[in-house]
């Protein structure tokens, strides 16, 4: 392996804080781990003896399962604590929950939580690494890492590429993390969707905003669809699902405005017929299932980096006392 490993923090709580080199380090290890998927013996001994706790105080199936599989592939033991199933997190403060988990001798926590900043908060409280699996509308760093990994697999370098993120930007941690990651990797980002869901403030992150779908999609290399959570927004943020479809749903005709080799992405779960026509979601342009597969290998890479780097940090702290 020729790429040098760059990794500065014990935690992975945001993409905003990472350097381009750190993002590329994750991609590098993800590619290595992806090769191992083709072997008959998929399990690697890398994290044998380590205990990973998945603390999912907000429900999520696909992210939780991807982290579980990733940890198991690296031979770590995994325990998942979910809000509904656990008295540990019910009504208990996040600090108390964190201290219990530390006392349980966990080596790493993966946290999904409704409050923005909760992963940072936990990372500051604990000595063990914390990986953010989604904190409110703030960030979802591993999603951005797997998304950019998938784009690079299909398109090569992202330098100068045009990526359109379409839909609910305001409430989306996936959008925020992807914007940070894409800008660091040299891509141009255009945001599109109803003005109520695409605030002007995003220009300060270096994005273009275009409320016209045709203009936004013109010559794009990637269109990333975001889930419309209509139960939450339909009352105030746009008139109806029908109107959203009429203006912003991706269909074959609209997909033809993209570049010929452009790809279509979606973090899932997909509302078929709302964000995208069902047939288009299953077309060769769509990389939705590749995203799921890559979700495992990028998370293997982040678990590996956080745990080995945490060891290095601990050793570095211990050294002067010798």
């Amino acid at each position, binding site marked *: 392996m020729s790429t040098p490993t760059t990794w500065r923090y014990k935690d992975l709580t945001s993409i905003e804080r990472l350097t381009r080199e750190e993002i590329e380090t994750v991609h590098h290890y993800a590619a290595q781990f992806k090769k191992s998927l083709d072997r008959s013996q998929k399990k690697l001994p890398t994290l044998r003896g380590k205990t990973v706790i998945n603390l999912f105080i907000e429900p999520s199936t696909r992210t939780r399962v991807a982290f579980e599989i990733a940890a198991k592939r690296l031979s770590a033991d995994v325990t998942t604590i979910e809000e509904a199933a656990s008295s540990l997190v019910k009504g208990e*403060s996040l600090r108390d929950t964190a201290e219990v988990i530390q006392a349980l001798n966990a080596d790493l926590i993966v946290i999904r939580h409704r*409050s923005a*900043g909760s992963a940072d908060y936990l990372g500051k409280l604990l000595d063990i690494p914390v990986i953010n699996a989604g904190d409110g509308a703030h960030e979802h760093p591993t999603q951005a890492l797997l998304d950019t990994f998938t784009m690079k697999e299909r398109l090569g370098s992202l330098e100068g590429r045009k990526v359109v993120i379409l839909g609910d930007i305001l409430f989306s941690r996936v959008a925020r993390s992807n914007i940070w990651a894409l800008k660091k990797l040299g891509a141009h980002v255009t945001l599109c969707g109803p003005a109520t869901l695409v605030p002007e403030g995003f220009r300060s992150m270096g994005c273009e905003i275009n409320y016209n779908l045709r203009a936004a999609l013109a010559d794009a290399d990637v269109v990333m669809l975001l889930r419309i959570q209509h139960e939450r927004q339909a009352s105030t943020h746009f008139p109806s699902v029908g109107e959203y479809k009429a203006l912003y749903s991706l269909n074959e005709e609209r997909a033809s405005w993209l570049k010929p080799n452009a790809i279509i992405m979606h973090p899932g779960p997909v509302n078929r017929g709302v964000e995208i026509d069902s047939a288009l979601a299953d077309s060769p342009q769509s990389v939705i299932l590749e995203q799921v597969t890559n979700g495992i290998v990028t998370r293997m890479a982040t678990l590996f980096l956080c745990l080995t780097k945490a060891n290095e940090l601990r050793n570095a702290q211990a050294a002067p006392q010798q």
Partner: protein
Amino acid sequence: MSILWIQNGRVIDPANNRDAVGDIYAVDGKIVDHLTPDQQQQAQVINAAGLVVCPGLVDVHVHLREPGQTHKEDIRSGSRAAAAGGFTTIVCMPNTSPVADNSGTIERIRNSAKVNSIVHLYPTGTLTVGMNGEALAPIGSLKQAKVVAVTDDGKCVQNNELMRRAVEYSHMLGLVVMDHCQDATLTKGASMNEGEWSMRLGLTGWPAAAEDIIIARNIVLSETTGAHIHMQHVSTKGGVELIREAKKRGVRVSGEAMPHHAYFTDEACKDYNTNFKMNPPLRTAEDREAVIEGVIDGALEIIATDHAPHTDYEKDCEFDKAPFGVIGMETALATCLEVWLHSNRLDLPTLLQRLTEQPAKLLGLPAGTLSTGAVADICIFDPNERWTVDPMKFQSKSINCPWNGLTLRGRVKHTICAGRPIWDGERILEADA
């Protein structure tokens, strides 16, 4: 007989346009214009050379949490925090538990103040029953129980018809209505200013419009009823401009600025530190500038603190779950000096007027001046002494202070309430039992 002789200080008394080095005398709790040779012999002397001597500061917006939440603060600790900050008169908000919407609770507060407060303390009552914004509180009875104003601070009456009646009724009784200006439909789930930083941090934003809409409503209601409405903690550029323009037309409105809105911007929230979570929230640099400018030209003629204590364990949590509010009495003078004086934005007499004469005038309180015959409430401070903020050393029970660790210029050296020294720059001076 208690006699006090404060010598050679720079005496600034904005109410009397006085700014000159000289002496101040107090006999039996009142300011006098000279001491007899006999009295000079007996006087307790304070050498104020190199220091500023001004009226005791007046804070028309504090939360003392008594009754009901005395784990955060109580009248005893809150009044000592005031003393340490140079305040000798404070006005407490009625969002206690139970809320001060009846004369019984007001009496309870005043009785506790008699025993526990070392500064002059005046209560306010609520505008509506339970602060629920649905029915008028017994404002006449509250007036008889000696509230100095009415407010639903912490909340804002959303129903315009009810607000109109509250204003008319209070006006009849000669009570100022103080309003916390917040349109609740625009701030659902919001925990910080809506803008670039809320967007980056993924926190639900609190638009400036939520404040401006209510300020505009209140201006209209003041204009149509002739009543005085005071806008609490104005934090937006739009709000400052609305008030400035209304005053030019002769509308009876006033406005209040907070040191934290003049000192910080919403960028301070970037590490999710809950000590920067307050209501209204920290705003943009442009809003901050407007608040500073508003105090300079008098659009906001009053500076108050919105001292809002919360315990460390209540603030130690996720940002969106933390309670709103920060403490401020013990840092107010220094932060105001940093913002307005040391930046050469405003002269000291005018700044002190916003902290003494104006707030006293708003509510007709016997305070805020060193006139002969006035109650001898005095603050003596060094405008240049540097100190590093350490909330653990504060008199307040709570430590939710956004200036924690910052070095500020301006230190209160003596606080004197009704002729009695209560703070010596280091500690509270308790009365002899």
